[in-house]
């Protein structure tokens, strides 16, 4: 269980801190995480493009990276191959 899921202690001060966090940095954090996820998919595309039939570069060294991205491969493929429409840009 991560820190943010644990019941928080600290009473009114903690509630105040959370409100400030929510108003100021939450959006920033969300943005950072989303950008990070997009970059992760870009990274996998560059290194593992062959998996989609897009051979970007020779795979000898990219194979070395495969074990580290193995868990992300299926979500990445889904994201890369899904159909897109206008609502995607609103998300």
């Amino acid at each position, binding site marked *: 269980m991560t820190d943010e899921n644990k019941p928080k202690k600290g009473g009114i001060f903690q509630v105040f801190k959370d409100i400030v966090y929510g108003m100021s940095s939450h959006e920033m954090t969300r943005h950072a995480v989303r950008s990070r996820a997009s970059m992760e998919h870009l990274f996998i595309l560059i290194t593992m493009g062959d998996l989609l039939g897009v051979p970007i570069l020779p795979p000898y060294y990219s194979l070395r*990276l495969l074990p580290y991205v193995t868990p992300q491969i299926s979500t990445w493929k889904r994201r890369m191959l899904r159909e897109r429409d206008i609502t995607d840009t609103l998300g």
Partner: protein
Amino acid sequence: MSLREVFEGYPERRYIMFGGKGGLGKTTLSATCAFWLASHGKRVLLFSVDPQASLSDIFQRDIFGKGPVPIVPNLWAQEVDADRRIREYQDEIRKKILDMYGFDRVPEEIDNYISAASAEPAMEESAIFDAVVDIIVQGDYDYYIYDLVPLGHALYYLSMAKVYDEWINKITKLREEMGQYDRVAATLRRQENVEEDKILQELLYIKGRINASSQILTDKVRTAFFFVLVPEEMIILDTRKAAELFSRFDVPVAGYVVNRVLPPELEQEQIPVYLKNRIAMQKRHLEGIKNIFGNQILAYVPEMDRDVTGLPMIEKLAERLFT
């Protein structure tokens, strides 16, 4: 300057390469040079980066995939078994996935990808490229002599180092940027991501290997690249083009060796018109070679009266080449 003077005058040049079109005598000259250096007390490793290696043929014994095999005192020869290296590498990747995630078997999709990678045309070259780094990093020898692939492939080999290098630089940068976003999110959430560092570490490791190999190819102090050519029009033109391309890749070209020169004294004898014409043709082209490459020509190697295979023939050629 002669070939001998080049070796005696520049003992710091430890990485020796003979390049040229296919069938001009790269392997013969590599082996001869290795033999001569070894007979002068230098520890020499002669290794082939050609998937269709022919060191086994020239030494008349099977050395394929057996690591450095001693040939004569101070001389070892090695032919890399690229297929085996690829297979071992694939198994290593599979094992890593199993170990990292505690799977019983590698997910089918991932396994298919690993298996399919061996069919990639660049895989064999990449595997050899990587094997060369292993060979050189160990640093046990005074001289490393590359028995190179034919010109076109050699250029590909050189450009591969450059492409790989740029590719790795770009993705390392991307990975570092990702790390910045990670740190922003992690600081706020008090999380740590161990895997990030591992991927970056892998990238830096790969970068180190590629740099080790490409630095040697372009090292002006420690590397000497010799072109092998024969007195024929097409070969001269191709060699000239290749030399320009190689210098664009910063490969230090140390000189040219002209192989398969028909002995001019033959002209004094009763010889058929066919042979007379060939000698006249070679004479003309030798003039051309002299005009183009000038004092960079280090040796003229005579056409031998039989195949240069086996140690006695190599020894005989070494005497002619290094007098």
